[in-house]
């Protein structure tokens, strides 16, 4: 048993949902109790999708357990096929259904449903979300891509083609990364054959073998499928993840090589990061001690950008991606730090407290830790939060991605000159340790106007019960209300009269 305050990854069926939701024409019947339907909100609230995920939950109850949960499952399967008319049906169990052993996949196969059934075995007590996404994607690719064999030859005169593998629903900046990567490849004259799972249909998966090579954009999701395609169709995989200026150059060189094109000339000034990093104001970034944590891909990529492109010093590097522990250890060795491969939030918190970095590049979990410890932090990896789906284009990959990295990593730090002033004038009241950087806004502490009504003790206590983020407004409104009416002492009644007065 493992004590978890927060978890970095959901259970594996959430990974399956991310794949199913990303695709078109796929439906997922999940044998699960009603509470598991919370998963819908991840997609509809966090990612703001305007459609429910294509998932039917059987929602069995305790009273069904003694009886026939399998009958419920059969009914759900029939209904899902009839109502949603999928081209492929995924069938699996969540943690609870795994224990009651109804074998949903086998049962669905025996029912002679009018649609191909892909049973998913996602062991909920061993595996986690990303593994579940990778396994689901692999099973879908295997089922749809046809029997292994030689690749069909490229039509004469057609440009080289590749598949982009790995983007899913609820992915950290997948939407924006895709645009950047498409632009990089277009610049080389390489066509994109299929993007999957995001936006793909089962028929698109059948066309995967037509490409010359596969781009493994998100290894956590795409690696098993890419390896199978490599084995089955002799399709090589491009495994450089283009996060940062250097990695983007490497990505382009590797893409050209796999496409049989001449090596590309380094694009001058494609990204602003190199010049911004060399401009004098950035000298204060030199040697900033940074702690990195995330999925393996983003954490490792960020370590390279942090050292080579921003001049930071990596003091800690870790990941919750157990499946990529080897890669994380290798990267940590390269930067001479102790690797941290764990999904125990408390362990990460302890390591950060011990290292006292000046900047944390992590997940939403590290943002909690950073807030508590008063350390600047930027989010570089899933698990995602509604803030990780900004309205604007905000990629991590490619040239524009490098610009975004520069801005978003440097923003929480002090501006260069400001930091020096702070050191010189420590006594200045505006510059005390608690003062936030000026560009992040000040908590104004103006003295109260003299004609203020006094707060009675009980009213003051009542005011403290107002949530802190509206308390200031409640105080100001009540005081204004009292002043306008010549009330000398604010009572609980005044507070509520004012509340009623200002309510709209």
């Amino acid at each position, binding site marked *: *048993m*493992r*004590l*978890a*305050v*927060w*978890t970095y*990854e*959901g*259970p594996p*069926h959430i990974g399956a949902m991310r794949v199913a939701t990303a695709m078109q024409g796929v439906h997922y019947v999940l044998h699960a*109790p*009603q*509470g*598991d*339907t*919370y998963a*819908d*909100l991840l997609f*509809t*609230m*966090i990612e*703001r*999708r*305007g*459609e*429910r995920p294509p998932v039917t*939950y*059987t*929602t069995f*109850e*305790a*009273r*069904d*357990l003694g009886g026939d949960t399998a009958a419920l499952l059969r009914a*759900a399967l029939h*209904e899902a096929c009839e*109502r949603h008319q999928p081209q492929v049906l995924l069938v699996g169990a969540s*943690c*609870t259904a795994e*224990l*009651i052993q109804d074998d949903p996949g086998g049962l669905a196969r025996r029912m002679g449903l009018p649609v191909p059934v892909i049973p998913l075995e996602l062991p*909920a*007590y*061993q595996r*986690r979300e990303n593994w579940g996404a990778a396994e689901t994607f692999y099973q879908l690719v295997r089922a749809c891509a046809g029997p292994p064999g030689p690749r069909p030859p490229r039509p004469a005169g057609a440009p080289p083609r590749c598949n982009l593998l790995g983007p899913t629903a609820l992915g950290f900046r997948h939407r924006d990364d895709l645009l950047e990567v498409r632009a990089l490849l277009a610049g080389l004259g390489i066509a994109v054959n299929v993007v999957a799972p995001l936006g793909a249909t089962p028929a698109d998966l059948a066309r995967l073998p037509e490409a010359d090579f596969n781009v493994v954009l998100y290894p956590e999701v795409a690696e098993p499928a890419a390896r199978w395609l490599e084995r089955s169709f002799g399709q090589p995989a491009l495994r450089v993840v283009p996060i940062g200026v250097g990695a983007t150059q490497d990505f382009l060189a590797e893409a050209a090589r796999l496409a049989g094109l001449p090596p590309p000339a380094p694009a001058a000034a494609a990204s602003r990061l190199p010049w911004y990093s060399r401009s004098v104001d950035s000298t204060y970034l030199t040697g900033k001690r940074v702690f990195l944590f995330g999925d393996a891909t983003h954490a490792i990529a960020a370590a390279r950008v942090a050292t080579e492109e921003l001049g930071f010093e990596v003091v800690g590097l870790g990941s919750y991606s157990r499946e990529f522990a080897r890669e994380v250890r290798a990267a940590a060795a390269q930067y001479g730090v102790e690797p941290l491969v764990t999904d125990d939030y*408390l362990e990460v918190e302890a390591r950060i407290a011990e290292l006292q970095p000046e900047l944390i590049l992590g997940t939403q979990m590290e943002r*909690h830790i950073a807030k*508590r410890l008063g350390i600047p932090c930027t989010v570089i990896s899933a698990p995602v*939060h509604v803030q990780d789906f900004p309205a604007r284009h905000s990629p991590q990959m490619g040239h524009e991605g490098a610009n975004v990295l520069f801005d978003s990593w440097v923003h929480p730090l002090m501006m260069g000159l400001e930091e020096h002033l702070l050191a010189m004038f420590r006594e200045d009241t505006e510059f005390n340790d608690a003062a936030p950087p000026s560009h992040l806004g000040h908590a104004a502490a103006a003295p109260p106007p003299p004609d203020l009504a006094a707060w009675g003790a009980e009213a003051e206590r*009542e005011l403290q*019960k*107002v949530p802190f983020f509206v308390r200031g407004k409640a105080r100001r409104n009540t005081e204004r209300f009292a002043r306008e009416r010549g009330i000398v002492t604010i009572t*609980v009644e005044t507070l*509520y*009269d004012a*509340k*009623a007065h200002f*309510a*709209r």
Partner: protein
Amino acid sequence: MSGASALPGGPGTVGAAMPVLRERGQRAVFCGLTSIVWLHRKVQDAFFLVVGSRTCAHLLQSAAGVMIFAEPRFATAIIEERDLAGLADANEELDRVVERLVARRPEIRLLFLVGSCPSEVIKLDLARAAARLSQRLSPAVRVLHYSGSGIETTFTQGEDACLAALVPEMPATTDRSLLVIGALAEVVEDQMRRLLTALGIGPLHFLPPRRAQDLAAVGPNTRFLLAQPFLGDAVRALEARGARRIPAPFPLGAEGTTLWLRAAAEAWGIGPARFREVTAMAERRAREGLLRIRDRLAGQRVFFFPDSQLEVPLARFLSRELGMVPLEVGTPYLHREHLAEELALLPAGTPLSEGQHLERQLDRCRAARPDLTVCGLGLANPLEAEGLATKWSIELVFTPIQGYEQAADLASLFARPLVRRDRLAV
């Protein structure tokens, strides 16, 4: 257990021959674990340890996502493959997790072991675990248990199970007292306390208390008022201790609050004159507050998907005080006895539904095209994308909505989605 698993087999109608559609099928309601999200803030020295799976931990985290400003007083002991191999092992593991937790949070006085679907299915005996741990950690920490599993409880029923687990801990008394049960925001609790005290009703206690050691005493002379409609098990437990319920509607809206307070006043033999004296001003203020919002809501048609069991009292409030028209009032479980006063106040013929068949209910909702749909977080944006205005119901249990001073706030929650649509030109 309660609710879903023990539906009273009554006929398909209630009260004045109100039609009740009873459905079975896919549900879209959270499980009882969700109530930990507000309970852990309410009882300040209690900690909730879910014994469950990674799914349970993920549910709590996702439901709590927007709410957490500080380290939460809840966590999950995640069952893993090796725990499933043998139960003796799982018990040792649980003890180890609890010890780590108590060492980390020495301020904990009361620890709830909260059962989940996996712990129920593998028959992990949390009652025994709680007794064992209580003995080991005594006197610093008391350990209790209840189930918030999705196979037995929906959403707010987790609070019911938690309160029912507290009842046997309450000291015995034969003194006369009033107990208000159901978690209320502190600000609401204080308003109720002021009003009830001014009426001369007391001694007065609340369940759950703000601190575990302030648990009220209970006995045959305890009368209690329900502040929430989803407390079937807690009521049974209190009645087993001899306490008696004061039947009343729920304190939502000006009318609901008055009727709720009046039921207590009458039980205490307080005359109407005194009652008016104490409540008139606040009630007037609440009614005036509602007037402003009524303009936007009157005549608007509202559709409730089942969620918190607050649906019936809310529909009563919206129809009687704001002039809205309920098209369907869906509730996960219709507690006919505790809702009797509410049902009597609903407009005759209001369509009620109990349980859920999600797809069929969505069909009905789309066909009816209500002006406002009250639904869970999973459905809100998809319905908005179809052009239907929605109010996500989870806010109704995370926000202070009971009592006079909150009546206008409650109404605003329903008006805001409509007002927002009026404003937006994009």
